């Protein structure tokens, strides 16, 4: 059937968020007040009416499993289809596959069971709020083997360096993926591929002991494939470093990016946590900030992002900071350019100041 199944392949995403990825994979990193990075990709897939999504995980996938649970909050708790977190657990002594090919090899069933004829593959570092209906329609209309989703980079940012670039011919087909930093036509690591082509390339990669499906299965075979691209025009960005993580959280404190990301399309789905509305007390002074539910504010919060259930006590000042869920900022604390991972408690009177380029990061559950 001309329908899509989803694959979020995290095998080759390294732990790019320093303290924030000591205990969780990048896809599970919190973002924008109430989300995890994977929520954007997962929500985009659901908006594209994809009903089965597999996640190839590498390590530190426990918080990912906790977060997505049964998939119910993405309407993916299905009896048929649904959401499958697939950790690396295989025991076939005859298995010769390597790298992410081990996932493809050991989860071949997932692809065979589905009635879908096309697969939408994605990582977790490309952030946008969209559906891929138009990209898929382009893929179907052109009869492509694979359609790469791309963006035009209008300025150069550090996080763009590792993103591959698309080299196209006159017919608009993709003939190579390069590292040419001058080329502003960047690949998002999101692509749509015919299921039969995917399975054929997987077999080929395994036969030649390859370990990276994108590089060896797709890039090295572009000469043989009908590869199209679909350029995404909406608001989007990449998060692949602590610096880009900080900057793109802060960007959302501008009204335009906030509206672009959250109000241009259906809401981004995430885990439901039943927090009550934010409580602002008499002494609260909150400006230029994003706040998630469950927070209780007595102090000053300026130019900051507060996740769910944060307490800011009287006299405390939080500036240019990102405070993850359930942190407690006691009285008269002063924080500036700080990232607190979840469940951190800052005892009263203390001051912590980082810089915009090098925010001060505190790992989770610390009491300082």
């Amino acid at each position, binding site marked *: 059937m001309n329908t899509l199944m989803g694959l979020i392949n995290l095998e080759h995403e390294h732990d790019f968020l320093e303290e924030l990825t000591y205990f969780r994979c990048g896809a599970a990193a919190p973002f924008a007040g109430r989300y995890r990075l994977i929520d954007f990709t997962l929500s985009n897939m659901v908006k594209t009416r994809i009903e089965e999504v597999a996640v190839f995980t590498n390590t530190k996938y426990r918080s990912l499993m906790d977060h997505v649970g049964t998939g119910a909050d993405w309407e993916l708790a299905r009896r048929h289809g649904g959401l499958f977190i697939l950790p690396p657990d295989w025991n076939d002594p005859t298995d010769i596959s390597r790298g992410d090919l081990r996932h493809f090899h050991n989860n071949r069933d997932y692809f065979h069971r589905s009635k879908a004829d096309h697969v939408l593959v994605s990582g977790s570092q490309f952030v946008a709020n969209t559906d891929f209906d138009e990209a898929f329609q382009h893929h179907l209309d052109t009869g492509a083997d694979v359609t790469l989703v791309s963006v035009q980079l209008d300025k150069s940012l550090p996080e763009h360096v590792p993103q591959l670039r698309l080299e196209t011919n006159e017919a608009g087909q993709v003939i190579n993926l390069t590292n040419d930093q001058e080329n502003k036509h960047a690949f998002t690591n999101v692509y749509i591929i015919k299921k039969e082509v995917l399975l054929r390339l997987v077999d080929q990669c395994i036969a030649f002991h390859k370990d990276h499906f994108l590089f060896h299965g797709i890039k090295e075979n572009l000469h043989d494939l009908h590869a199209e691209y679909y350029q995404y025009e909406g608001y989007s960005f990449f998060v692949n470093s602590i610096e880009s993580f900080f900057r793109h959280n802060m960007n959302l404190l501008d009204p335009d990016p906030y509206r672009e990301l959250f109000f241009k399309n259906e809401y981004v789905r995430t885990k439901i946590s039943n927090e009550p509305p934010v409580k602002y007390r008499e002494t609260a002074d*909150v400006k230029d900030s994003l706040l998630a539910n469950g927070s209780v504010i007595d102090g000053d919060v300026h130019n900051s992002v507060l996740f769910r259930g944060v307490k800011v006590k009287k006299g405390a000042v939080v500036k240019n900071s990102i405070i993850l869920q359930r942190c407690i900022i006691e009285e008269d604390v002063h924080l500036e350019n700080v990232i607190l991972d979840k469940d951190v408690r800052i005892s009263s009177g203390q001051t912590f100041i980082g810089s915009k380029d090098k925010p001060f990061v505190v790992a989770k559950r610390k009491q300082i």
Partner: protein
Amino acid sequence: MKKQCVGMLLAGGEGKRLGLLTKDLAKPAVPFGGKYRIIDFTLSNCSNSGIQTVGVLTQYSPLVLHKHIGIGKPWDMDRQFDGLTILSPYTAKRGGSWYSGTADAIYQNIHYIDQYDPDYILVISGDHIYQMNYDDLIQHHEEKQSDATISVIEVPWEEASRFGILNTKDNLEIYEFDEKPKEPKNNLASMGIYIFNWKTLRSYLLDDAEQTDSDHDFGKDIIPAMLNDGKRMFAYRFEGYWKDVGTIQSYWEANMDLLEEDLSVSLNNKEWRTYSQDVNYPPQFLDSRAVVENSLINSGSWISGTVKNSILFQCVEVGTGTTINKSIIHPHVKIGKNCTIERAIIMENVVIPDNTVIDGTKETEPVVINDEYVEQLT
């Protein structure tokens, strides 16, 4: 499938005294507390008390209510065979009619209850704000070897004549039920929360259904009949916050109560969560001109003005220069620039134009604003 206790939640009331708020909405579906609907408190009580088989009896304007409850996911009651069931008045081949009283509502659904063969029935209503562990009530009922147990709350003596008063012995055994007594002998008011032994209640319901002069009401008919027969009936004393949001004034007060610090109904209680639909709206945004004090604001809202002593539901927009005080703003309301809103309740989706002044401070009740009100303004 044997169950210890089945809950029957009466959610069919019209709530006439809530005026505009219940014009097209069942009272239990009225928005409350910045994120909830009134019925969420009772459903969350059930969920937190481990009562997972609940029949919700609806009749008046049930569309929004049905949509809100859905299959009961937020309360963990989305089960294939038990869980939450919406029980609307059944239309038989020769027609159907509304429930004629609280007891009739249960009587009409005896078949629903019988399939679970429960020991007890918990009868509650969906229009009160309180947090209560019904399991404590059941344990009290079992300890007293009671036929029926009624939850009561102490009210000031001078107000007792406005309530249904239970006259009890020292051991809390009930010997008399006084509906709005002129000279109350007691100040324990019935909260309309009952535990019955199902077998006992079932036979009283069958008897009552045959009485043509009965109002088919628990307070007026069933309880007096049981007392008359000398059944063992005990009061259970509830201590904590409990409020019937029957009028616009009491609805407004109960919302404002949530801004109090020491309230025993706490939305922030992790041990007793209040569950509701949560629609994944983004975090709220306060811009550089925002001033917010002593208020509750829900996700998706966008604040550029001043908000004090107020409750704002999801996706409310407050324009620059606007001041809101002592008000309740329902979901998706857009308030323009340079407005002044005092002691008002603004209903869902209403758009308030720039420079509007709404002042409810001089009225006896807070003023309720709907689209028609706004049209007349302009």
